[in-house]
Structures are given as C-alpha cells and as structure tokens.
C-alpha cells in the first residue's frame, strides 16, 4: 500500500469521507502524517471562521468600550472581562454543558452541542473579546491630529469612523492582531479535548496525534508531525498578515511603518 493510497483513504477522514476505521496497527509515518494533516482541516476551519466573524464583533466591542455612553461601555467591558478573564478550556466545557441543557428546552439548540457550531461560537466570542481589547487600545492611540483634520474637512459620524478612525485603528492594532490570530489557531486544538466530543472519531489534528501517541506509546513521532504542521500554519499566517500590514501602512514613509513582530507572551 503506497502513501498515495493512504492519502486517498485517510486524506478527508476528519470530514467522514474515505476509510471509516482508524488504523489499528502498522502505524507508518505516512499514515500518521496523512491523518494528522486531515485533522488540520478542522483547525483551519475553526480558525478562519472565528477570526473573520470575530473581527466584526471585535470592532463593535472596541467602539463600545470607548463609547461615552454608560450602557454600551459597561456591556463591552463585561464581555471582554468575562472572556479574557477565564480559561478557554473552562469556557468550552461550560458552553457544551449549557447547550446540552438548552437542547432539552428547544431542539433549535441541537446543532450547538456538536463541535462544528458550538465550539465555533465559543471561539468566535473568545477571539472577539481578545481582539476587541487590542482594537480598543489602538482606538485610544489614534493620533489626535488625524481626527481634528477629519473634522476640518467636514467628516463626521459614520464617514469619519469608516474613512479615518477605523483604518488608523487597524494599522496600529495590526501587529498585535497578528499574534492574536496565531494564538487563535493554536487555541483551536483545545476543542476536542474539552467538552465537545469527536463524533465518529472525526477530530482535529491534536485528536489524531494523541490517538497515535496513545496507541504506539511513542510521543516522539506524532507530536513532532503536528508541530511541523503548526509551524507551517504559523508561517502562513505571518506571511498573510504581513502582506495586509504592508497594505495598511503603504501611505506612510518607510521609517514610520510598524512591523509585525512575533511576541508569544499572549496566550489564553
């Protein structure tokens, strides 16, 4: 059985396509690499969908937290504190059991108790809270002169936010936001280790890596493969966000452009 057959059998195993049974013996390097790679589909799915949807909520939260009005400010502050102050692991557990109890109230909540939606909701709120805090910090450091110039040109309300404040906020927040994106992808590995069960053994990359490490009792093969996949993913994110960063900074003189610096001391 060549490696291509293994790819055909297990390449989309995490989506339920292909061979149904996971390998029981003869754990070749190829099988481990293919199955763990197949699990990466879930990590990428969770990461991308949560990041894109969380981006909009994060902007709203940042504006809310900076708002002079009491109600939106308090709501955003509490939301951000709730999700930044507690472990993501506990959030997953809590959400899963919450959706389980809601399921008995109304069948609308049935899909929420499976990982593809339930965990996604948690990740969406979580990344929105973390990015919201980043955006809020950037919103406060938008140069006063920019806003005054906008006023002088007759901008106000939504056009001023859309054309002047928001792009500057994004530009200032982008290096920190890049790290947030990286850690969001790392955080997706927690999904199948917390409350959410992997239905029919369709798990993410860490789920399969852990499966192999348990079966072979040898952590020195499966985990390094997983680490390799994540390093590639991290490099891709840095490249993509770096390209966006260059676009956001393109109007500035070379020396004043902010560079994306990888700072890994921000975790969940």
């Amino acid at each position, binding site marked *: 059985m060549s490696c291509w057959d293994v790819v055909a059998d297990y390449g989309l195993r995490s989506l339920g396509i292909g061979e149904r049974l996971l390998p029981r*013996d003869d*754990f070749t390097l190829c099988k481990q690499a293919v199955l763990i790679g197949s699990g990466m589909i879930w990590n990428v799915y969770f990461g991308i969908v949560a990041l894109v949807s969380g981006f909009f909520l994060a902007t709203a939260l940042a504006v809310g937290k900076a708002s002079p009005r009491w109600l939106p400010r308090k709501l955003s502050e509490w939301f951000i*504190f*709730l999700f930044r*102050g*507690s*472990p*993501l*692991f*506990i*959030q997953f*557990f*809590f959400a899963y*059991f*919450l959706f*389980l*109890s809601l399921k008995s109230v109304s069948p609308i909540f049935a899909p929420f108790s499976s990982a593809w939606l339930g965990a996604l909701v948690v990740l969406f709120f979580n990344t929105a809270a973390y990015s919201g805090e980043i955006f809020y910090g950037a919103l406060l450091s938008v140069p006063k002169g920019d806003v005054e110039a906008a006023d002088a040109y007759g901008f106000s309300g939504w056009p001023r936010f859309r054309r002047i404040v928001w792009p500057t906020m994004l530009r200032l927040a982008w290096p920190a936001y890049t790290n947030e994106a*990286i850690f969001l992808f*790392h*955080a997706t*590995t*927690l999904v199948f*280790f917390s409350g959410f069960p992997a239905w029919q053994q369709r798990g993410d990359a*860490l789920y399969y*890596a*852990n499966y192999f*490490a348990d*079966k*072979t*009792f*040898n*952590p*020195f093969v499966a*985990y390094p493969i*997983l*680490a390799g996949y*994540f*390093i590639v993913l*991290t*490099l891709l994110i840095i490249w993509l966000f770096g390209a966006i960063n260059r676009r956001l900074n393109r109007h500035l003189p070379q020396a004043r452009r902010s560079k994306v610096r*990888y700072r*890994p*001391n*921000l*975790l*969940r």
Partner: protein
Amino acid sequence: MFSFCTDPSVLSTPAWFACYFTTGKLMLFYASFGTVLLLLAITAPVALGFGFAGAAAARARFAPLSWLGKLYIAMVRGVPDIVFFLFFVIALDQGFEYLRHKVKCPDWTDPIRQGSDFIVCDAAKLPLSTAPQIWHEVYGFSLAVLTFSIVFGAFAANVLYGAMRAVPHAQLETAEAYGMTHRQTFWRVLIPQMWVYALPGLSNLWMVLIKATPLLFLLGVEDIVYWARELGGAKTARFSDYPHADWRVWYFLGLLVFYLLFTRVSEIALAKLMTRLTHGQATVGGEAQRKAA
C-alpha cells in the same frame, strides 16, 4: 456531616443543600482547588528559575550555550502549548524510566521498544508497582509540575531575555568602565535593574499560568475540572444518596466564577506591585509618580 443528613428524601431544600455541600465527595472537590493552588505555588518559582537560566544561557558568550538558550526560548513559538503538555508528560515519564532501567538493570538484553510497547525491567518502573496509591498520585502531579515549569519557563525566558536587553546599555558600559568583570556587571547591575522591565511580561505570564491550570485535567491529575465533571453528572439513587439531574453546567459556572475572581484579584495585586517597583525609577511611570507626589 450533619446529624439530620441520614435520610435525604425528607429534607427541606436548604437543609438538603447543606447536606449535599458537605458530602465526602464534595470535600474532595474543595481539596482539588488546593491542588490547583499548590501547582501554581510550585510552578511559578520553578518556571521563573527555568526562564532565568534560559535567558542567561541565551546571553552567554560561549556560542553552543547561547544556541541552547535561544532554542529553548524559540521552543514555544509556532506550536500550541497544549502539544508540549501532552508530549512532555509521556516523554519525561519514558525518559526517567529509561535512565533508571540503564542504571538498575544493566544486563537486560531485550529491546525497550517492542512494537507499540515500552518495556523496562520491574525495578525501573516509576513509581514501583508495589508502591501505595498515594505515590502514584504524587508522581503524576510532579510530572505535571515539571511539564508546566518547562513550558512556562520558555515563556519566562522570553520575557526575561527581552527585559535584559531593555536595560539601558550605558549602565553596563559604566559598570565596565569602573572595572567590573563580566560576571559582576551581570549580577550587580543588569539583574537588579531588569525586574521593572520584566514585570509587565511576567504579570501577563502569571495570568496565562492561572488560565492554563485546567489543563492539569488532560495530564491525568484529579483537579477541579475532573471533579466538576464527575460530581455534576447525572446521579441516580443507586450510586448516591443525593440524586440530581445533570448539574455539570452549574459546576462549570462555579469554576468560571472562580477563575474570574482569581484573575481580578491577581490584576489588582500586580497593579499594586507595579506601582511599588516603578517608584523612583527613571521611566515614564516613575516620573509620573514623582510629579503626582
């Protein structure tokens, strides 16, 4: 616990809860909060030590040592920390057993890895299969502490390495101008000034460490997550005197509140510490304090 708890079925609601919250199992749940605090109390200084060693090694003039330190710092970049947690627990366990095997059973000829098995001689097992249960738990907990320390040591090394580079270079040059050796400069000038630059990063790290403690559950320690899952699950009269529906959501709500409070208290305490440390420092914060006074 109380004398009226002998027949739960006749109790009024407050009395029922008074009995429920004082059962032996719930006591184990409360004790597991102690496990988490113990883990934090041991891990924080040990990880700081690992981090200090790593940062000092990365600054070393001896190239291989410096590479080693930089490799340690770079370790946690790009790979989820949970992977290291799962990896180190097995790897350390096998490493210890392998070393003991080499020392205790030198005339053993069979290979240690036989297919999917990892076989060492009986005398090399850790802890020995004859050891009482408590030693198995202590060993599991120590492995968890060591794993946490290695991973968070790498984060701490990152912070401390950055802080050492943030100390104004003129300070070090002045020290050398006064004839201090490299070692004296390091211990007497660099280290005392480093902390104020390191504190924001280290406080962030403390928050991260608090939020990483539920991962103990994954390492096989009976921590608060384990007990919340066990106790919250639906109980029938067959297994317990206190039947109730699935209460896991309430147990995890409790844990959520516990962590939120813990984070809040830490935030306030660290802010106070920062105020004290910036006092009299030639930084923006210190200057602001001087003007306010």
